[in-house]
Every structure is written in C-alpha cells, then in structure tokens.
C-alpha cells in the first residue's frame, strides 16, 4: 500500500468480512489466550521489567499475528478491516526515527527510544482523563505544567461545563468546548513563556467536535497534535477514520489513543501486552499515527501502576523498541490523587518501568478520573524527572528498584481505599500557578526517598 491509503482502508471497512461485534470480542479473547499459551508468555510479579529479550520479541510477533488474523473492527459497518502481514511491514518501514513537535524555541525532538536508552524521554503532560473546571482555572492548571522547565508538551484535560452549560456529547457545547480547550491551552503556554510548546490534545469525545479545535492562530496548529481513539479492543469507526482523513490533510500530528483494559477481553497482563502490540500496529496502518498513547487501565482500579500494569507497559515498550520504529508513550494513570505521597510513588514506579523500556511519557491521571481538578503540574514534573534519571539504567537495576519501591505504595491501589488528595486549587497558588509549600514538601520528601534508592532527580 502507498503511504496515503485512506481510500483503501475505507474500501476494506465496507467490503471486509461481516461480523457481529460480540463475535469479534469472543474471537479476540480466544485467540489471545491461545497465543499466550503458544508463546509461553509469563507474567512475573518480581520481574516487572523483563530481561528476557526473546519474550519481548515473542510478544511483538504474537501481536503482529493477532492483528493480521483478526484485523481492525469497524463498528459502523460491522466489518473487519484486514491487512496482509507484508502490507503492515511495508508501512512500518516508512516510520521516521524522530519527529519535531512544537515550534520555534519551544520545539523538541521526539526520537525513537530503545531498551535501556540513554536518551531522555519526552513528556506529553496534562490532566489526562481528568475532569477540570473551565476558564481561568483550566488555564492555570495547564500553565502549572507548562511552566515546569522539564515539561515538553501540554493538553488533554476534559471539561464538565462550558459557560456553565453541561457538556453533552454531540451538542453545540461540545464543539465550543473543543475550540475553547485549544484556546486555553495556547493561553497557558503563552502565559508560561513557552508559546511554541506542543499541545497534545483537546479532550472532547466526538471526532467531529475535535475538528473545531484546529486553528493555526488560536487553536491546534500543524506543530500540535490531536489524539484519535480506538475503541476497546482493536476497534474503530468511520467517524474516527474521517477525523484521521481531515487531520492528515490539515497536517498536524496524530496520536493513536489506545485504552486497553488489563483484566478485560484480553485477559491478564500477558494477553493485554499482545493485544496492545496489535493496537499499535492498527494505529500505524489505519491512523497514520506519529506517536501512540499507551493508556492502559486496570479493569477495577482504573490505574496502571500495579505490578500487572507496569509489567504490561514494560513488555509492550520493549517489544516495540526491539522490533519497530513505533514511538509509544506511557500514559501514567495513578490510583491516588495529587497532594499525596502515594501518587508520587506510583508516578516514580511508572517513570522507571517505562523509561527503561524505551517509552516516552504522559501524565498523570489520578483517582480513576472520577474527581474534578485532581491534576497538577508537579506530579508530571516528578514523572519526567524520574524518566530522565532512569534513562540508560539497566533492566536489572530497574527491577531491583521496583522490587523495593512498589511495596511502599501497592496496598493503596484499591480505588475504594486510595487517598484522593486535593484539588489543583487547594494545592497551588492561583496567582502564580506554582505549588504551595505543602505539595512541594511532599515532592521533596519523595525525591529524597528516591535519592536513597539511587534515583537522583
């Protein structure tokens, strides 16, 4: 296939094999179980970052087989968009080793990272999966990220209201929210003195509403990006493909947003890793994605900082880093909230496991996205700093750290018991958008602990 291939993808979405969605889910479930067994993929709670290269390669190969055998399900037409393996490999060959995101003095190079790569990860930060208050509070929230010098990109908050009006999907207010989210993100980065910083998304649901954010002056520019979601697991729709069509012609970056569920249709960590490799391949071939958001969540606790989640992320990262040029980003979802040591400890574990495994960073989500304004720039600062500190670290050292570090927080990962912390407004000075002492002191405390563990921020 040629690099511009949307007509062919659309044709397959209309002419591919017809299947009820439930049957597709059942096929995915059964085939994934078989592949886990065939390749003897084994989760090891005491080796979060696998040192077994052949297992990572097997996960990649199994993911490729799953994608080629099952295909990408189109919910609109109830047909399967299928590809031959050679077609997938042809597209993979076209991927660049690096991209430049953002513009001017604020542009950063985002390069393909490998396992134990000494090159620091890039962080796409923001209140990922978190509801935020509209207006000035939202601007200040994003500014709290943008003015952290280690942060490379912002975006991604979700609004509950716009001009006081509840935002329902598919309404005029959702379209307005998309436009305003982009404008407020521009204002936040300008206020932080970084007007060319890459904006990574406006978090509205309807693909057609996202288009409203595109505006070379006040909104999403060609140097920014928008995320296009896959549906769980390995599914898309004509609406999402139409958004890809428009973003491709507009020329901004496209992020493949995957939200695999650990414990869902793909089963445990082993199956989830295989399915997620397949989802990356779907993002490469069908979404023409420049980067990929690995937004894994646990089926119950809605986080990815437990042993199963971190193992899955590390395995996918290593599988991709060893076998492809697919640039993937670990989207850090924590069970606890800002203003708590638990969240910082979760973020630190995620930073180490992902950075060593060749991934870039995004974060941090908190409290299962259930609590409004539970997101601040400080936890993203720590996530990035840990990711940088772990650049070039050996997998053995990462495991040694995680074996001692995870027990410090894992008893708090049950979503019903994890500490919820405080809101951005409670933890930050709203004039300067800087953390108050209590939050800085907690950060310093955890940073000191990390230093005792050999990770200097």
């Amino acid at each position, binding site marked *: 296939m040629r690099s511009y291939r949307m007509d062919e993808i659309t044709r397959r979405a209309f002419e591919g094999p017809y299947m009820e969605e439930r049957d597709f889910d*059942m096929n995915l*479930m059964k085939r994934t*179980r078989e592949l886990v067994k065939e390749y003897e993929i084994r989760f090891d709670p005491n080796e979060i970052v696998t040192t077994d290269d052949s297992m990572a390669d097997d996960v990649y190969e199994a993911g490729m087989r799953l994608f080629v055998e099952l295909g990408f399900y189109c*919910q609109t037409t109830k047909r399967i968009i299928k590809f031959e393996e050679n077609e997938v490999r042809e597209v993979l060959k076209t991927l660049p080793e690096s991209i430049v995101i953002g513009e001017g003095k604020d542009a950063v190079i985002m390069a393909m990272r490998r396992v134990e790569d000494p090159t620091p990860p890039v962080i796409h930060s923001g209140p990922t999966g978190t*509801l935020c208050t509209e207006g000035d509070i939202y601007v200040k929230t994003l500014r709290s990220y943008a003015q952290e010098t280690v942060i490379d990109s912002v975006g991604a908050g*979700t609004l*509950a209201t716009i001009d006081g009006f*509840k*935002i*329902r*999907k*598919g309404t005029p207010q*959702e379209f307005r929210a998309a436009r305003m989210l982009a404008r407020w993100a521009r204002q936040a980065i300008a206020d932080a003195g970084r007007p060319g910083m890459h904006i990574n998304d406006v978090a*509205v*649901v309807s693909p057609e509403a996202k288009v409203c954010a595109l505006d070379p002056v006040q909104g999403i520019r060609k140097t920014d990006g928008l995320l296009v979601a896959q*549906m*769980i697991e390995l599914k898309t*729709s004509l609406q999402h493909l139409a958004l890809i069509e428009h973003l491709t012609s507009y020329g901004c970056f496209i992020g493949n947003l995957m939200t695999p*569920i650990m*414990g*869902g*249709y793909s*089963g*445990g960590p082993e*199956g989830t890793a295989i399915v997620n490799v397949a989802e990356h391949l779907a993002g490469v071939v069908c979404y023409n994605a420049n980067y990929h958001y690995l937004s894994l969540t*646990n*089926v*119950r606790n*809605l986080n990815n900082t437990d042993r*199963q989640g971190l193992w899955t992320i590390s395995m996918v990262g290593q599988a991709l880093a060893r076998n492809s040029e697919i640039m993937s980003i670990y989207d850090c979802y924590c069970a606890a909230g800002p203003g708590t040591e638990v969240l910082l400890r979760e973020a630190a574990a995620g930073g180490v496991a992902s950075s060593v495994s060749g991934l870039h960073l995004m974060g941090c989500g908190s409290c*299962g*996205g*259930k*609590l409004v304004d539970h997101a601040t720039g400080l936890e993203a600062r720590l996530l990035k700093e840990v990711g940088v500190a772990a650049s070039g670290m050996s997998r053995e050292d990462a495991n040694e750290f995680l074996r001692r570090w995870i027990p410090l927080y894992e008893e708090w990962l049950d*979503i*019903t018991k994890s500490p919820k912390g405080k809101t951005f407004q409670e933890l930050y000075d709203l004039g300067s958008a800087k953390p108050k002492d209590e939050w800085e002191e907690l950060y310093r405390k955890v940073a000191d602990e990390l230093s005792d563990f050999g990770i200097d921020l």
Partner: protein
Amino acid sequence: MNHEEILQNLADSVISGDEEKAKDFAKKALEAGIDPLTAINEGLMRGMSQVGDDFSKLKIYLPEVMMAAEAMKAALSILEPAALQKGTGTLKKSKVVIGTITGDIHDIGKNIVAMLLRANGFEVYDLGRDVPIDDLIKKAEEVGADIIAASTLLSTSMPYMEDLISLLKERGLRDKYIVMVGGGPVTREWAASIGADGYGDDGEEAVKVAKELLQRVKGK
C-alpha cells in the same frame, strides 16, 4: 456420589468454565433427585458467586468470567426447563433493562455488569450502547422491568443519566423503577446527587446493590 458432591461439582464446573462438565452434572443432579432450584441456587449460583468474588479481587479476569457464564448457561438449559416442569413457580426472575447511555459507545463495563446480573438470576435486557434514554424507558415499560441500569465511561454522557431520571419523573414513572448508574467517571456521591437509587464501584457491587434494592424497594 451424594447430593453435596454433585452440587459441589456443579459449582466447580462454573468456576472452571467447563460447559461439558456443567451439563453433565446438571443431568446427574436431576437423576439423583435433587430439586432443580436447589441445583441452581446451591450449585451453579454458589460457583458464580465465587467467580464474581475472584473477579472483584482480580484473581481472575474477564475471559474466565465469560467462560463461567457460558458454563452456567449450559447447565441452566437443562435445569430451568426441569424446574418449570415441576411447576414450583419460583423461577420468576427480576428484570433489568440495561444500556450504555446516549453518546457513549464504551460497553465493556456494562457488559460485565449485564453478565454478572444474568449469572445471578436476573432476566437482563441489554440494549447495547449509545442508547437514548426514552429507549431505556420504553423497553422497561414493555417488559415490566424492575430496574433500569445505565452506564457510561464519559463525563459528557453523565448528564443523560440526570435526563433519564428527569424524564421518568416527568412521565410519572419514577417510582415504578429502581434506577442504577455506574461507570468510570460516575461516583457514589454523584449518583446520589442526581437521585439514582443505586451505584456500584464494580460489577460485583452492582449485583449486590441490585439485590438489596429489590428486597428493600420492591420486597422481592
């Protein structure tokens, strides 16, 4: 094999998701003269309760729960007709109309709840995803439902849950149905604030709450 051993094997067949074993022991239960309702409640349901508990603690994952549900369905295909034939009349199931509400096409959470409700003896009408609120109400009226359950993963679909309750009130139907809500961004506090009757943090809790509400509100 005594009665207790047969019931235990029925429970085990559900836990291991073994359809053949489930059918086999369903037949054995009838041959041994075990009351079909006893086989359902003390065999299959006991197994499914264990499965729900294990899933809630993530000792097992969704594929194992789906296999357990299939095994249970296979055994029920033998035990339910036998129970009806005996004419005990106690097989009357509580009815739930469930769907992912308008604007949202995420359905894995709703599917889990629907499956666990079915496995716990509810008659479930699953309307799928992106379901308009009046469709939920229409179906509830049509089948004489006890519970209307709505799920969403999106904050932008949560207002439709409020609309569901408002529309029930407007149409004078609010007291007729138990309304349960749940999903990623939904909290217990928010559910209470919009006047929903029940909320579950996960599928296991949703089933527990549904049972409690049925007893408390409808005396079932």
